[in-house]
């Protein structure tokens, strides 16, 4: 089991970073320049880990990024990677979707504590923005998740994946829920127009303002793990999971590139605009899907 967890972390780390490298590269191409290589995130990460010094404001500041990384690894662990495989199945049976929903916010809370300890008002502003945005962002996502749980009468991800083999993919069965979840995902990935917390022009790169060296490196690494976890989750819930690593990469990359193409063409919303938007359009779309499930099977 421990070996498999390590395997999982390595896969997620590598894939996450390569995806982010690709993201930077594609962004560059869209902006009409070459951009960095797709390995650029590795360079950044290793450089930051090998910094000679890292500023720290005491033990809570030190522990914050670690809690965040722990949250990311835990999230990753509880998401089944493949259909019909024993890979980490002994872990994933220990929890269900509700656990996952709350594990996903555990890390950010730890980070928020560290940011508060750092005492930079810009950092706390970023956290507050993030938390204010969060309940707008979570609403359509929760609707989608609850809809799927009701539709498949199970909060067990493996069971939801298995059902899709019989009933067809959820993306076709519940397209409204999928759209709602995807709009939320744009925000969860920190893409425009919902990239409010870390806006460098407004709040000095927000929650990450005070983090340097190995702390920043850890935050970046957990970011890539977490991003991969979220992609796999969407794949599992809506695209029926994957049978092999190749298929998994294909499906997650398809979702990722969709998110990029949505995010890249928009400017940034204000917090109030973002939450207002999220509470209207995606919520409404999600509600249509949910009502369809409750009252029309």
């Amino acid at each position, binding site marked *: 089991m421990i070996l498999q967890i390590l395997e999982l972390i390595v896969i997620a780390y590598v894939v996450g970073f390569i995806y982010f490298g690709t993201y930077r590269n594609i962004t560059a191409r869209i902006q009409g320049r070459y951009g960095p290589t797709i390995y650029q995130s590795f360079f950044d990460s290793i450089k930051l*880990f090998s910094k000679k010094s890292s500023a720290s404001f005491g033990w809570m500041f030190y522990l914050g990024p670690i809690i965040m990384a722990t949250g990311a690894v835990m999230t990753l662990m509880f998401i089944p990677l493949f259909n019909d495989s024993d890979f980490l199945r002994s872990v994933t049976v*220990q929890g269900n979707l509700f656990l996952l929903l709350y594990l996903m916010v*555990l890390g950010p809370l730890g980070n928020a504590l560290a940011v508060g300890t750092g005492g930079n008002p810009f950092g706390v502003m970023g956290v507050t923005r993030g938390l204010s945005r969060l309940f707008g962002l979570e609403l359509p996502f929760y609707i989608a998740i609850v809809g799927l749980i009701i539709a498949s009468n199970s909060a067990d991800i493996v069971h939801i994946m298995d059902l899709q083999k019989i009933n067809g993919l959820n993306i076709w069965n519940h397209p409204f829920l999928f759209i709602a979840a995807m709009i939320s995902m744009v925000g969860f990935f920190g893409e425009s127009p919902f990239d409010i917390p870390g806006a460098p022009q407004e709040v*000095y790169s927000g929650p990450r303002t005070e983090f340097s060296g190995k702390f920043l490196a850890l935050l970046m690494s957990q970011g890539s793990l977490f991003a991969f976890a979220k992609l796999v989750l969407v794949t599992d819930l809506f695209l029926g999971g994957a049978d092999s690593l190749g298929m998994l990469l294909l499906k997650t990359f398809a979702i990722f590139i969709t998110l990029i193409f949505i995010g890249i063409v928009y400017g940034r919303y204000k917090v109030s605009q973002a939450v207002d938007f999220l509470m209207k359009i995606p919520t409404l779309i999600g509600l249509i899907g949910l009502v369809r499930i409750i009252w029309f099977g």
Partner: protein
Amino acid sequence: MNPIFLLLNLLPILFLYQLGGDFHMSVPLSQEFTLSLVQTHIGTFFAYLSLGSFLLVTIAQKTKHLSWSYYVLQFVLSIAMFVIVFAGDFITFFIGWEVMTWSSYFLISKSLNADMKSLQKYILFSLGSAFFLIAGMVITYAFTNTFDFATIASTFQFIPFSIKVTLVVLFSLSFFIKAGVIGLHYWVVDTYSKAPDLFSAILSAVMSKMGIYGLFLIYGNIVGFYELKEMFGSVLHGSSFGYVLAWIGVITSIIATFKAITQDEVKRLLAYSSIAQLGYIVAVIGLGTSFGVAGALYHTVIHTIIKLLLFINVAAIVAQSGKNKFSELGGLIYKTPLSFVMLLIGIISLAGMPPLGGFASKFMMYNALIDTKFALVLVAMLFSGAASFLYCYKLVYGIYLGHPNSKNLEKQKEVPLTYLIPQIILALALIGLGAFPGAFVTVINPILKELLLAPIPYSGLGVMQSVVGNFNGFFVISAFVIIFLVILLLMFRIKSKAKNNLNRFDISYCGEVPDKNTSLHYGYGMGSELHRIKFVNAILKRSTSNFYESLAQQTKKASQLTSRMYYGNIHNTAIIILLFFSALYFIGVNS
């Protein structure tokens, strides 16, 4: 800590312990009425909860600040609650209820902050609650000719339908007032914030639970969950009564959550948070399914533990620093590290995060809603949970993180041990419930049996089972600890040197160097930006105070009108009295 009263508070617990589960006592009052105490499982559950809370709060109380009368009143209050939860008939229940009301009223009035207005609010709403209760009692008596719970329960189904509905509404209103359901919560926030700091813990953790106990008594024991479902029909997979109640509870929690975020006073935030959490309980209590009742009971325990912990924590800080506002506190983390850790455990549980106890109760409640297919209620509840992260963060940031907002905070020391001991006990309880969420199921199952519900599946201490998948609390917490330690070790091993404990002014501040006079604490402004979000602003700008203020005005005018009758002229008064009695006579003759 007053040793005498500590022992005195220990006595009822020992008494309860040696009762052994089957206790019955009745004192005949007259031929028709008897006062009776009956030990039930649910009563025992609530009794342990309240008596334990009293004990922990007594540990924290400082002797020199409090008079003997305070302790005596508090003891009377705890006995009143004992009577309430074991009452076997309405008269005993009502006596307990009234003793609770006045003893708590005097306790609140002992606070230095208590003003006339908040005290009046408290007593008026308590009286309102009592009036609803007594109205319900009298109507019940008119139709069943008894005050005894067991007899009423067996004959309740023969009462006409409209009377049944009236009774349910009357009793619900009475207990909603104590639990602070939205619209009836007007007294809660002022009372909690004005009461003595440690008594707020009792108010929020225990007294509000008496409302919840009342709801259990009515829905579970007297009406019966099955009858409740039959009475009102069903919607989706649950009862329509439960559906309405679920929406009432969830709307309560959403509104209270947003209100909590914008508060500046620490105890007001906690008061609103208390309303929000009780909203969850109200939301699942009426579902009438095993999971609904189990979730409500579970959350009752968790909320009691959390609110005791948080209120004692805040009371300690307020006592130590003399400040009770976020705009005056801040930056205490390295001054009072142990307190910080305790509060942290509290808020992680309050937010319902997985490795600690708070998650298990949320898990249970969510499953209850899934079970009955109340999807929209569930979404609203999850939404309220997501919004509550913001006030949880404000609580910990405003007090402990960031920079101190007042000068005397620089010299702050760790709070006294008497405050810390109860907090440590409560924190350990939260960690324990996080690791062994199943442990509590064994406590809940006898209660469910008593309420004629199916027991919920139990498989091991660490596992929490449900209709839609389960989770293993022990696995989650141990995985969390192991991964955390591994990453911590790796971080220590990395050569990059952490420059620990930098000066708190050494922050990236656009090249500037902030100093003592720079305003660096963001706690005050946190939540103010919510006003710009249209939906949230629509909630925030509404308030029940206008309604109640205008009600008070109208009552004043009406009483002025009445008082004119007595003004001077004896002839008018005589005529009115004559008219009144003749009217009574005619009504009496005709009926």
